[in-house]
């Protein structure tokens, strides 16, 4: 169809003029900026307040400087961070969180990866019962069984101080949904890879470690990222299981649980609270920026949960 014919169509509307288009662009961006500011204002407030001492926070109340960092005292801008890191031991709690997350990630990938490989690639009697149970546990929304879990772990470990760390880590190492993710991914790996390795004399475990795992970096990264976010953000379960340290020894609490205690400390300033919140958020922020690709992939596969 040539141009003239198109213009004669009954519903033809000519392209908008460039001026109209520019106006539209400007309006779009202004609306976008206003919306972004509305969304970001609590975060800006948090960042700004974290640089202020109690007196300069009080001085800025009710004015625009609530959302601006404390430019008047640039030298002491990071005093609050130093204070919460050293005086309130946040760095110890953060280290704990990293440690728990690292152990959980390694165990989670091994345990669920092995199970996913078996479900995807091996044939054995009784497989149908297991696949049915996996689907059942994913689809049925089971209401928090955290209280029975607590009684089981408590009886299992006897809640000795040193053992409680195991109580925090072990329940997080199994995830039915991760087994499902691994199974889905492994099913897409062509048989030829395995067969080639088998001809070279590898056994099943060798094939898994030498062939399957190196091919599965994307799914391992996705699982690892979500494990990290899960462990880092969990505060309830550790708060039930772990004792809070009050005798000066190395604390066992992860950072999110420790936040609950830090809030209640006497004499803590608003600025210090805000810096502790920011320090807690930084690793997750870094993960979201660095592992964007895998997180989006994870969101994509989350749709499979249906």
């Amino acid at each position, binding site marked *: 169809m040539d141009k003239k014919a198109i213009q004669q169509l009954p519903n033809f*509307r000519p392209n908008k003029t460039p001026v109209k288009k520019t106006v539209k662009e400007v309006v*779009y961006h202004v*609306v*976008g900026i206003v*919306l*972004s500011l509305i*969304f*970001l204002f*609590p*975060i800006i407030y948090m960042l700004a307040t974290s640089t202020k001492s109690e007196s300069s*926070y009080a001085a800025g*109340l*009710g*004015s625009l400087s*609530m959302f601006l960092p404390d430019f008047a005292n640039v030298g002491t801008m990071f005093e609050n961070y130093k204070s919460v890191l050293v005086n309130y031991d946040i760095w110890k709690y953060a280290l704990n969180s990293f440690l728990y997350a690292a152990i959980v990630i390694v165990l989670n990938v*091994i*345990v*669920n990866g*092995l*199970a996913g490989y*078996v479900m995807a690639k*091996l*044939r*054995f*009697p*009784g497989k*149908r*019962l*297991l696949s049915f149970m996996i689907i059942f546990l994913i689809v*049925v*929304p089971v*209401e*928090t069984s*955290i*209280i*029975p*879990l607590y009684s*089981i772990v408590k*009886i*299992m470990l006897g809640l000795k101080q040193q053992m409680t760390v195991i109580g925090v880590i*072990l329940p997080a*190492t*199994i995830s039915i949904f991760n087994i499902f993710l691994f199974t889905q991914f492994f099913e897409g790996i062509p048989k030829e890879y395995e067969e080639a390795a088998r001809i070279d004399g590898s056994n*099943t*475990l060798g094939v898994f470690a030498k062939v399957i795992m190196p091919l599965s970096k994307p799914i391992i990264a996705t699982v690892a990222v979500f494990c990290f976010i899960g462990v*880092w953000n969990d505060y309830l379960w550790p708060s039930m299981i772990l004792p809070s340290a009050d005798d000066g020894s190395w604390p066992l609490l992860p950072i999110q649980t420790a*936040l*609950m205690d830090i809030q209640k400390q006497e004499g803590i300033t*608003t600025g210090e*609270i*805000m810096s502790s*919140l920011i320090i*807690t*958020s930084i690793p*997750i*922020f870094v993960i979201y920026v660095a592992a964007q690709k895998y997180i989006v992939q994870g*969101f*994509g596969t989350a*749709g499979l949960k*249906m």
Partner: protein
Amino acid sequence: MLRTTLIILAIFVALFVGFVIYDLKTAKRRRETYRTKSSITAYLMLLPAVILAFLFILLPILYSLGYAFTDYYLLKPNDINFIWFDNFKNFFEELKTKGTLYNAIKNTLTFVVGVVPLQIGLGLLLSLFVNRPGIGSKIFKVCFFAPVVISLSVTSFLWLQILAAGENGLLNSLLGVFGFPPHDWLRDPKTAMPCIIVLSAWQGCGYQMLIFLSGLSNIRKELYEAASLDGANIWRKFWLVTWPGLRSTFVYIIITVFIGACRILTQPMLMTGYQDHTVTLSYYMYQQGYTFRWVGQSSAVALIMTIFIGGITLIQRRIFREKK
């Protein structure tokens, strides 16, 4: 407790062995061949996952089911008696007398009714807003997503400062500029739940936006072009092209947001504590089971919640599937 665990384990092993024998018997008919060596390898590789899943997923679920009919008190694990439906009788008793449980149900429903449409609506609007090429929309997308990165507990503590009573809170000090007196947002029964709804929608809608965006990217461009050739305006395009194209995404989102909203616990727990005007079902469950140590009563509430959420989820799936 150990005995019950062993009995459950025995039942599961028996069930599994039964299936194995059945599979072996019918193997020939299904033209399936099992090799002993590879089957044993498979079992060994499954073992860690099966043990952990049994201990930390299956057992808690089954115990939760069982405890609902007992008078289990956490500190007396050796003295558990079946009291059958007494826990559920208490449940309805407390409902009738408008006790804490009544408030918990009322607040949870308020939260669900408020947050589900707000969060999904915001997510949808934001995704439509940023669904266009250009650097501007990309930056806006990051801004709208930023609250998701902050965890729920950090969000709660942050908003605790924003909504703080007295003149030190951000909201009160801003309102103070316009001459409003400071208000105790979280202790006032009228404003506490709405505040929690707003901050939860703020925190969560970026996630919904991202899922809607992935749904939007699956809609073919030609459909829009065809619609504009037919002279459809922006509304008709939305109803004729965008909305049908987003249906499956929408079903997924509405079910996940609904289930998540029913489970709300963090915000009231960290922001107000165990108060009648903000207590929710999950919080009630946690408090009964952990703080008051009445595991039996707590499990009964969990069971009722599971049935309620499962039922509503089924209904939602049915409704949206039939409309296809």
